[in-house]
């Protein structure tokens, strides 16, 4: 289907039947007509077999460019004995697709893989039973290839899946009890099948959420201060002069409380009106002074929690041969999706349709239900991919802003955030202070480890809802918001260990949210530099030092894999420093997110006169258990390595006491082509281990490897990232 037809279909389809996917979602004639989530205990919720001997698999995970929409089809095709050309999926839609939880924590394959696998296996089992009756042969005598069931030895006695269930429901309970294939028999799973979404993404036919239009819609923009204040303070309108846009035909102001927007039939008129509208805002300072941010965090009254405590850390420290005690700082960083978030909403008195690029259509629906004071089942949320979000960017805020604009204007509205809206009102990855103490005996065995971390939680209320009157609230606690038992020493065998989390009051700081590998870059930047410093004191090569303190076979395997890839030769760090203007160094690091195993080696170059640091080569290895498609994970590792370089060298949200000031790509620079490292991704395939996340599990290791390479090159520890030229020059001059 060409893009134009798709868009026409969207337009002529009318507001509540948008989405070409619905045509593909038969057999159940009523699929899509009732609010979801569809019953996860029914096979029909998960897949449908069509007359033409193909299958539609209903997947509850969002394609975000990581390839999960292809990989989960590989899982289904494998169990169903279908070819990849015989399976397809549909767009996420709260009336159509199951609720598998959001596409968070790189869990599509980890959590969704087993569900899709067992559902497909159970459907296959049912199909074989039907075929057994039809062909009058026992199930044990049947074989399947490409969806054709045959009697072994009598290929003329056969029937297709499509003939057995021709666009008809199974009406079968999903019990999860059907046997699945042993990994040794996998043909499709584990294969490097190309991604389904790529051809349309390069020929221009891919429909991004930014391309979705509804008939009769208006274009909307929000009007906010340039750059957020402290989360708890929101934004307060002082005065608003509607006559300031009177000359723009068809543009008008809509407002609820401090939520201000403009709508217009013509998009450029909406952009102009938002720019031109005269609004004054409360400018009382609410933010910390940026230069003193980490000191304020360290001194703040916090809610404390001991995450892990074992052995006697103080006692072990007292008798250690080598002790390192260091403090590290991480910045606020932005999601800054390349295309700002966009959403289209049609809110009617008794129901609503919202099209957006959320990680979780059901979660977004709940937020909209609260905002619109409408039962969740009256709201239909459909997913179209936006640009890479890497966590909780402004997609929920965009969905809510579009819904509010639509309700206030009483028309369908397409809301497109401008660059400064997205950069300035993001849920940033929170800043962090980490204080680490690590000790070893004379032989270099780690005997004590302590990590104390300071940061605030994520923000639970979207800006649109907050400005319209909902009070700010911190996200409830969770593993990804506090000191990580895995990244903070968890890979090493340490008898005496203590991890303490200090939770800051979120309303005094910037809005927070999960940003790819949340907090992990900061944890490993601190923890793995301290481990490296201990290796240095013990005069042991940093790779060997790690090896001798690890017994877990999976950590050892990724560590060895990355060292082998980088042709690591043993020597003490900082033992080959150069007096020249350009120093080169290498570093190694370990880390992950909540699961899986990551290891990285960095080779970097430091221009001592300018303070410029460039990563020349990054190697990253991941063990994520059974990898459904190694090519996809390699692409994810490559992307993570480049993004980590960007976050370690460039990215830092800036603010004054009134507003965030990093509002575009000049004030919030990211890595570009000329500074991009060579990358080597390494996948450790483990067919017999359960699949775990692979979309963010090597960034922490890479962050640490970069920092350790800096020490190797200069003999100087960097205490704070990003390693901007001014920070690097300051560190070098302090050391000199």
């Amino acid at each position, binding site marked *: 289907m060409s*893009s*134009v037809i798709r*868009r026409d279909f969207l337009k002529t389809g009318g507001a509540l039947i948008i989405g070409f996917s619905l045509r593909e979602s038969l057999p159940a004639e009523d699929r899509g007509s009732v609010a979801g989530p569809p019953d996860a205990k029914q096979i029909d919720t998960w897949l449908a077999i069509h007359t033409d001997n193909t299958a539609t698999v209903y997947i509850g995970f969002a394609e*975000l*460019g*990581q390839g999960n929409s292809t990989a989960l089809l590989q899982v289904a095709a494998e169990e169903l004995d279908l070819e990849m050309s015989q399976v397809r999926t549909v767009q996420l839609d709260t009336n159509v697709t199951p609720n598998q939880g959001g596409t968070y924590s790189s869990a599509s394959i980890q959590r969704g893989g087993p569900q899709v696998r067992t559902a497909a296996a159970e459907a296959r089992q049912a199909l074989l039973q039907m075929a057994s009756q039809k062909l009058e042969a026992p199930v044990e005598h049947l074989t399947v290839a490409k969806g054709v069931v045959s009697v072994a030895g009598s290929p003329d006695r056969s029937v297709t899946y499509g003939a057995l269930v021709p666009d008809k429901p199974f009406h079968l309970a999903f019990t999860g009890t059907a046997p699945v294939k042993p990994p040794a028999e996998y043909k499709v799973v584990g294969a490097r099948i*190309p*991604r389904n*979404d*790529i*051809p349309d*993404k*390069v*020929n*221009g*036919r*891919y*429909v*991004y959420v*930014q*391309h979705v239009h509804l008939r009769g819609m208006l274009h909307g923009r929000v009007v906010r201060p340039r750059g957020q204040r402290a989360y708890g303070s929101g934004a307060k309108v002082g005065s608003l002069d509607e006559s300031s846009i009177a000359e723009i035909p068809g543009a008008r102001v809509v407002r609820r409380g401090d939520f201000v927007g403009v709508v217009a039939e*013509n*998009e*450029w008129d909406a*952009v102009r009106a938002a720019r031109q509208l005269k609004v004054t805002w409360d400018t009382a300072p609410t933010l910390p002074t940026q230069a003193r941010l980490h000191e304020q965090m360290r001194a703040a009254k916090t809610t404390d929690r001991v995450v892990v405590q074992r052995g006697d850390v103080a006692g072990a420290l007292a008798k250690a041969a080598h002790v390192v005690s260091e403090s590290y700082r991480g910045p606020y960083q932005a999601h*800054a*999706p*390349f*295309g*700002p978030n966009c959403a289209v909403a049609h809110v009617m008195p008794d129901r609503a349709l919202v099209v957006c690029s959320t990680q979780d259509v059901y979660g977004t629906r709940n937020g909209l239900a609260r905002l619109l004071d409408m039962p969740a089942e009256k709201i239909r949320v459909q997913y179209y*991919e*936006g*640009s*890479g979000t*890497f966590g909780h960017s402004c997609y929920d805020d965009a969905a809510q802003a579009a819904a509010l604009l639509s309700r206030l204007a009483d028309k369908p509205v397409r809301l*497109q955030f*401008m*660059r400064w809206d997205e950069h300035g009102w993001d849920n940033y990855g929170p800043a962090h202070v980490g204080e680490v103490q690590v000790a070893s005996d004379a032989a270099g065995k780690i005997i004590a480890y302590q990590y104390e971390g300071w940061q605030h939680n994520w923000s639970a209320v979207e800006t649109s809802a907050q400005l319209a009157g909902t009070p700010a609230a911190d996200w409830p606690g969770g593993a990804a918001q506090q000191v990580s038992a895995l990244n903070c020493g968890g890979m090493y065998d340490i008898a005496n260990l203590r991890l303490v989390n200090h939770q800051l009051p979120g309303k005094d700081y910037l809005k927070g949210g999960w940003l790819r590998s949340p907090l992990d870059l900061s944890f490993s930047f601190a923890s793995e530099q301290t481990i490296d410093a201990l290796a240095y004191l013990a005069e042991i090569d940093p790779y060997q030092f790690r090896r001798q303190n690890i017994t877990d076979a999976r950590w050892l395997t990724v560590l060895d894999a990355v060292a082998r890839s980088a042709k690591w030769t043993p020597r003490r760090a900082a033992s080959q420093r150069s007096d020249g203007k350009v120093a080169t160094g290498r570093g190694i690091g370990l880390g992950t997110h909540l699961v899986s195993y990551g290891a990285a080696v960095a080779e970097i170059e430091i221009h001592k006169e300018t303070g410029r640091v460039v990563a020349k080569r990054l190697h990253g290895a991941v063990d994520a258990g059974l990898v459904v498609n190694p*090519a996809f994970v390699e*692409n994810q590792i*490559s*992307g*993570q*390595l*480049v*993004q980590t370089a*960007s976050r370690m060298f460039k990215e830092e949200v800036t603010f004054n006491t009134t507003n965030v000031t990093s509002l*575009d*790509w*000049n004030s919030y620079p*990211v*890595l*570009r*082509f*000329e500074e*991009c*490292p*060579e*990358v080597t991704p390494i996948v450790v395939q483990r067919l017999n281990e359960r699949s775990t996340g692979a979309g963010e599990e090597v960034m922490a290791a890479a962050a640490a490897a970069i920092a350790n390479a800096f020490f190797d090159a200069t003999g100087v520890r960097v205490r704070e990232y990003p390693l901007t030229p001014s920070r690097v020059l300051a560190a070098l001059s302090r050391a000199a």
Partner: protein
Amino acid sequence: MPGELKIRVNEQVRTVSAAPDTPLLYVLAGELELQGPRFGCGLAQCGSCSVLVNGVETRSCVTPVSDVQGKSITTLEGLPAWYAAQKKLRSAPPLHPVQQALIDEQAVQCGYCFNGMIIKASELLSKVPQPTEAQIRTAMNGHLCRCGTYPRVIKAIQRASRAMAGVA
């Protein structure tokens, strides 16, 4: 006030009703419903909205529509035909070699930046058919990618360069 303007897009003359100062992007993406050029920053900083104007990569988000009257605009959608005309091929291939190379390298992640990547790489190869890696990096430096696909984009441009050398 909106008036009638004629612009040449992908070798077709299109009549559009837009105020002369309207950025070209809003005309292409809105009125003409093209999906190639897309909004990224509105500040000419990222390359999301790029098109070719008389063969030169141009940021359509800051280019008033009145500026391109009488010029030839090529968007992602028209790139295979633009390539065919350049190479004097009898008919347009389904994809420009850069597009095919990006598929072959499986370079894409979210793909939102690839409109600009493809436009810029096509412009580069039209001027420098066999660029060095350094030339590729320099030419592409004004195009951002948040997913970190740069290494594969570089490989794809090199692959496309080799493929184009094989075309008469």
